[in-house]
């Protein structure tokens, strides 16, 4: 196990240095250099960058519309979540505003994407704990939500659906009935998930009081998203700084006090229900109307800057766009939740057992492609 050019100290002796990833069933496109002493992890060093493409640099060579499909590539399982803040920031720079119906449809898409992303996470978490059924079930049920999103966006995962000024096209007419049918089915499934996984004594034994992130640590380290909420802080950009029309719907922010892996699981499970709840309310509120403010010619931003944050599936997604009046943005800075949560991984892994590594690692919902951009 030769390391390639990085300063990794292989101390030898009792301690084993394990390279978890990038070719390891328990990692993504990501390497975790773990030093174990017996069964305990005494050192952990994340080594991201295996799927780094330089999205920020490439965004400087694309105009505002071309950037949408480009920027959703890092997080294809949460495509709306990653493009929505970009579009909102671009709208500020171009100075347009989307009509009401478009805002509602954006919310539907964002929440559908949150469900899709969380179900993906749940499936992987199941297999990380060795529960193969919990891998297959969410992956199967995820298809239903993908079908719903496909009926709006046109493609299965990379929708490129939200554009500056509105959304690309309207919802299908029978979307409401289809969605409600799916939700009814899925709410029953959640009960089955609880029976087989969340209330499974072995699962709770594996995750409870494992990887405890205290409230103070979570704030200090800049943890975001469900991980922050599992540490007891009810911070959610949808409530803190409502974008789209989130201030018109009524939903709860699931929180837990414990801050352990199990709390992070349960928070995500409850967020699934809240997302469906939001979509149901939006489907009642939404009214016919225009879906796009048409922008003539090439989009040109005014000189200036905008920074926008939204709540994507993994946490707060932040865009900082600087424009100098050209066709292309001058600088696009993306701050992704996975990258910010990465610092928590080192913090939690050191001192835990090697067998807890998957239980902690994936409970943070770290998505290597998103972190690397």
């Amino acid at each position: 196990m030769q390391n390639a050019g990085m300063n990794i100290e292989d101390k030898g002796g009792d301690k084993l240095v394990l390279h978890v990833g990038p070719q390891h069933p328990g990692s993504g496109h990501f390497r975790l250099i773990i030093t174990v002493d017996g069964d305990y992890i005494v050192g952990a060093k994340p080594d991201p960058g295996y799927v780094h493409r330089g999205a920020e640099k490439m965004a400087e060579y694309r105009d505002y519309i071309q950037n949408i499909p480009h920027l959703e590539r890092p997080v294809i399982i949460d495509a709306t979540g990653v493009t929505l803040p970009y579009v909102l920031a671009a709208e500020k720079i171009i100075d347009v505003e989307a009509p009401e119906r478009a805002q509602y449809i954006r919310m539907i898409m964002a929440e559908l994407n949150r469900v899709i992303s969380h179900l993906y996470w749940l499936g992987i978490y199941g297999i990380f704990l060795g529960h193969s059924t919990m891998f297959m079930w969410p992956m199967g049920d995820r298809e239903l939500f993908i079908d719903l999103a496909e009926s709006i966006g046109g493609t299965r995962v990379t929708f490129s659906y939200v554009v500056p000024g509105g959304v690309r096209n309207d919802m299908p007419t029978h979307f409401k009935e289809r969605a409600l049918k799916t939700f009814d089915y899925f709410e029953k499934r959640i009960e089955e998930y609880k029976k087989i996984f969340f209330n499974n004594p072995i699962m709770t034994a594996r995750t409870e009081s494992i990887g405890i992130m205290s409230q103070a640590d979570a704030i200090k380290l800049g943890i975001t998203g469900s991980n922050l909420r599992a540490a007891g802080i009810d911070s959610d950009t949808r409530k803190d700084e409502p974008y789209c029309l989130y201030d018109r719907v009524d939903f709860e922010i699931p929180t837990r006090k414990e801050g352990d892996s199990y709390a992070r699981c349960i928070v995500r499970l409850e967020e699934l229900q809240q997302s469906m709840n939001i979509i149901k309310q939006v489907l009642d509120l939404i009214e016919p109307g225009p879906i796009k403010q048409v922008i003539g010619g090439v989009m040109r931003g005014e000189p200036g800057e905008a920074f926008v944050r939204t709540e994507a599936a993994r946490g707060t997604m932040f865009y900082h766009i600087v424009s100098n009046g050209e066709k292309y943005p001058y600088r696009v800075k993306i701050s992704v939740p996975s990258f910010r949560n990465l610092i928590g991984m080192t913090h939690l892994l050191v001192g835990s057992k090697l067998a807890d590594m998957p239980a902690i690692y994936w409970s943070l919902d770290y998505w290597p492609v998103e972190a690397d951009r």
Partner: protein
Amino acid sequence: METFEEFVKRILTILFWLIIVLPIIIFPILFLVVGLLGIDVIIVNEILTAAIDPLKAIKLAERYGLGFSSTFFKIAVFPGFTFAALIATFTILYERKLLAKVQLRVGPLYAGRFEGILQPIADLFKLLGKELVVPEKADKMFFWAAPILSIGLAASLLSVIPLSPTIYIARSEFSLLIPFAILGFSPLVVLIAAWASSNKFAFIGGLRALHQLAAYEIPMLLSILGIVILTGSFDLMKIVEAQKDIWFIFPQFLAAIIFYITILSELERIPFDLPEAETEIVSGWLTEYTGMHFGLLQLGVYMKFYALALLFTLLFLGGWNGPAFLPPIVWLLGKLFFVITIIIFPRAVLPRLRMDQLIRIGWAWLIALSFINIFIAVIESSLGII
């Protein structure tokens, strides 16, 4: 480049001419040569006819001491190695199908017309076709020894386990103890495999396997002690005979549960599959094994599976006892199928345990429970329940 159709045509033509040429030309020449050389024609004749007539082949085999009742046949075919390997491959297929049904999938489907029934054979050919990779820094001798030892141990487990009053390989007064003595070797095989791979993940997996096997072998032995107390014998035949009226799962329920849990652990199955926990340590002590090496290790594990399921059936479910309208072996296989199902099923519904939890269950709970079980057995024995 010839097309595929041409290729098939060519093969068929060759076959056709072989069928024509063989009887007309080659056989007469063969008989002529045999006659001229003065070899006992009858043997050659028999061998040649046996090649086409299975019934004659059986007779021939019996004459040369390879018949159904011969020791060689018992060891190599039924109820020995081939039979066990068949059940093992069936178990693999059955496991995949059962898991697929639980997980709302279809599982293997295409190999063989019916429900992917030939999937194990397809897998076998896949494994045979793969390259055997021996790591450069591996200990070559041990690396090769581990798969062979694994399958050898698994096969020798079956040597004294009877399938019915008449079907067995060997009888022994201690046929209950011998399988456990052989099981004692399995940590050694794991150690050899893990150490020879010279891979950190394999090393950790091997250590875990050692911990686990050592922790669960003792409760496994202690749990069968109750049955020994009740029957006063180490002979599996006698133990099964003693269950004519009541299966031991009823008076020895605790023992059955302990034995079942230790089987799961001994086979490294979920929730005790820590030595192969793929998300932590890749594939544990199997990490470096490829191709048929891996296939043999896997076959060894599943033959061990079969042996342990068989032991559970014999010890707790009355073995071949059952109403007389079916032969004993059918009863046994039916119960065996049920036991295999319940051993497979936790994989569909349970996640994996952690090492310290596993050790605590093994050393603290199971050993204590098996001592309680021994007391129960003593009480039952003194009250004359059995």
